[in-house]
């Protein structure tokens, strides 16, 4: 396996520690393990496969990495039925038609190879990522791959292992500078092993209280220290409970932002009950939390933290 040495990566990111600091500067708090996986993905030129519950910051990794590398982010949102024409390339039919007409008007013959040339190609995210001519390799984010179907996975396999794309009419296009690939999955279904095997795998867990508090204070600086602490502790309590859909870090941040917008300096029972909809997305869950004693939970977390 060829090791892609990309100078700016080796010069700026010398160690896992540097990377961790760079991420933190950009308000992303990464565990040592996650930083190691990202670091290796850069050094070994391999895709990074991130799995975890919704809202733990998988997509964010790609975004912040783009910023660290000061490059372009190419994003492919997966969905069922995603096919080559939407993910890789499509021919620009209207331009082809025009071309035929123009030639016809001049009385020239249309050659098929002229018609199916790079000029008439619409580049979709995967082709863009492979064919880029920039100085810096882009970051390619293949988001929520579990939403796509098996056919697409098989297709992705070729691209991720060789960083090349074959278009029958044109030939094989190989990446000069392979993109940094981040694949995310919410695990609504199992992804085939063959694909995972080509990647570095990391499972992102819900953060600990300390880590989540860091994230909240970094991302929502307007929140008072007390509010941030209470919100984090409250969410951590909810995660221990028996909920159908457990709130992720994204919900913690949304909630904090919402409370700040409502000018709250601290959590009160009434305001928790009014804003539960921000963190709980199922009616059953809302009812369950309402029935449990919100006041007692608040008192408990105030003692604990």
């Amino acid at each position, binding site marked *: 396996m060829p*090791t892609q040495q990309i100078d700016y990566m080796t010069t700026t990111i010398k160690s896992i520690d540097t990377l961790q600091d760079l991420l933190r500067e950009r308000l992303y708090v990464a565990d040592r393990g996650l930083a*190691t996986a990202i670091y*290796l993905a850069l050094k070994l030129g391999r895709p990074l496969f991130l799995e975890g519950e919704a809202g733990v910051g998988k997509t964010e990794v790609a975004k912040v990495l783009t910023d660290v590398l000061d490059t372009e982010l190419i994003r492919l949102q997966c969905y069922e039925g995603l096919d080559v024409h939407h993910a890789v390339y499509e021919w620009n039919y209207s331009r082809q038609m025009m071309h035929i007409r123009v030639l016809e008007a001049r009385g020239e013959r249309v050659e098929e190879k002229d018609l199916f040339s790079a000029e008439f190609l619409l580049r979709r995210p995967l082709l863009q990522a492979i064919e880029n001519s920039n100085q810096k390799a882009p970051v390619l984010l293949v988001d929520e791959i579990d939403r796509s179907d098996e056919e697409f996975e098989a297709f992705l396999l070729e691209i991720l292992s060789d960083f090349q794309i074959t278009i029958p009419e044109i030939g094989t296009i190989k990446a000069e500078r392979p993109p940094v690939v981040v694949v995310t999955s919410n*695990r609504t279904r199992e992804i085939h092993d063959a694909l995972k*095997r080509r990647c570095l795998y990391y499972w992102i867990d819900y953060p600990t209280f300390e880590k989540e508090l860091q994230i909240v204070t970094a991302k929502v600086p307007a929140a008072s220290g007390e509010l941030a602490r209470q919100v984090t502790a409250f969410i951590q309590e909810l995660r221990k409970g028996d909920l159908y859909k457990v709130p992720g870090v994204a919900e913690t941040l949304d909630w904090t932002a919402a409370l700040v917008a409502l000018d709250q300096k601290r959590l009160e029972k009434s305001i928790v009950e009014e804003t539960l909809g921000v963190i709980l997305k199922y009616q059953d869950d809302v009812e369950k939390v309402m029935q449990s004693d919100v006041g007692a939970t608040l008192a408990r977390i105030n003692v604990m933290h």
Partner: protein
Amino acid sequence: MAENSSNLLHNLLLFGRLLRALGLDVNLGRMIDLVQALDHINIGNKGDFYHTARSLLVHSKEDIPLFDEAFELFWRKPTEEWTTLDLRALGEKRRFRKPAFIPPPLKKPKESASGTNGDTSISEDEPPVVQATLTYSEREVLRHKDFSEMTGEELEEIKRLMKALVWRLGMRPSRRLRPGRGTQVDMRRTLRRNLKFGGEVLYWEHRDRKVKPRPLVIIADVSGSMERYTRLLLHFVYSLSEGLEQKVEAFVFSTRLTRITRQLHDRDVEEALRQVARQVPDWSGGTRIGDALKTFNYKWVRRVLGQGAVVLLISDGWDRGDIDLLGKEMARLQRSCYRLIWLNPLLGSAEYEPLTRGMQAAMPYIDDFLPVHNLASLEDLAEHLKQVDDHRPVRRQDKAASRLL
């Protein structure tokens, strides 16, 4: 120095072998990747070394705890000092767990039928001759006989007949397109076909939706009250997962839910069922359907019920758990799947009415309520499954809503 690194390599390879022995998908290529990766990190830092090895060698959350144990062992002792005991201790946790209950093997037909067969030294591999000797009417009787009243040899016969059943589950339209007579225009092919007309489109090519089989999820009750049916129903589950082209996910429960999909993959049905028996901790225990369904709803629904899945729930509805919980979880389950089919072995007897509290609570949320007590009922089921797509089940919204309040 050179000796050091070759020593490390040696140890790494041993580590790899250990992981493989534990069932992780680790091969030489992966180990070479690991050696390459180690160039980039400080091997002296245990944490970094751990995460490097883990991100390369593990690619499923389930395998992480196993990897952790192996890693601890690897780090604690030089590999030369590993004892077979250490290795076995690791392996035991995963593989050699004592089965809580192994269903008793059924009597081999030849044991009881030895009277008719003078030669008792027939090898076990030889295909039994029972089938050929059954007349049409005998087979008809067998088809309608309740599973629980069958003798050992009849059961063997049923298993064979069950294998012959053809399973096909309804299709669903996928989002993928293929050339066909649909309404979508296939521009690529249209353009090619009309090239010669100089920019005039005379013929349109079309694309059509591809159809895909629906995923099937089976949740089977193996509690005490189902005991007489359990063994055969597991055979039935096995033949379904073998016979269908799509993925089949299988779970069993009595007081708690166990996923048995992986165990069913064994080629040999008896071996597969032995594995299942080993895996299930609460064989023939009490029944807590509500709890089992709750576990399923919370832990598995998002992973296995995508893409319009059909759910087969096999149980007699004797529930000793929380009835309200059962109703609530049934409601949720029904909302999460395309069709919820409940198979009840008791439904076979004419005088049965679903009066048990469990059944009463569950009834409003069942799309199809079918018997599963004899071969004829299985055949009917096979026919029914083929047609699940003809029309969506009619579900009344207010029922589900009022239940929640």
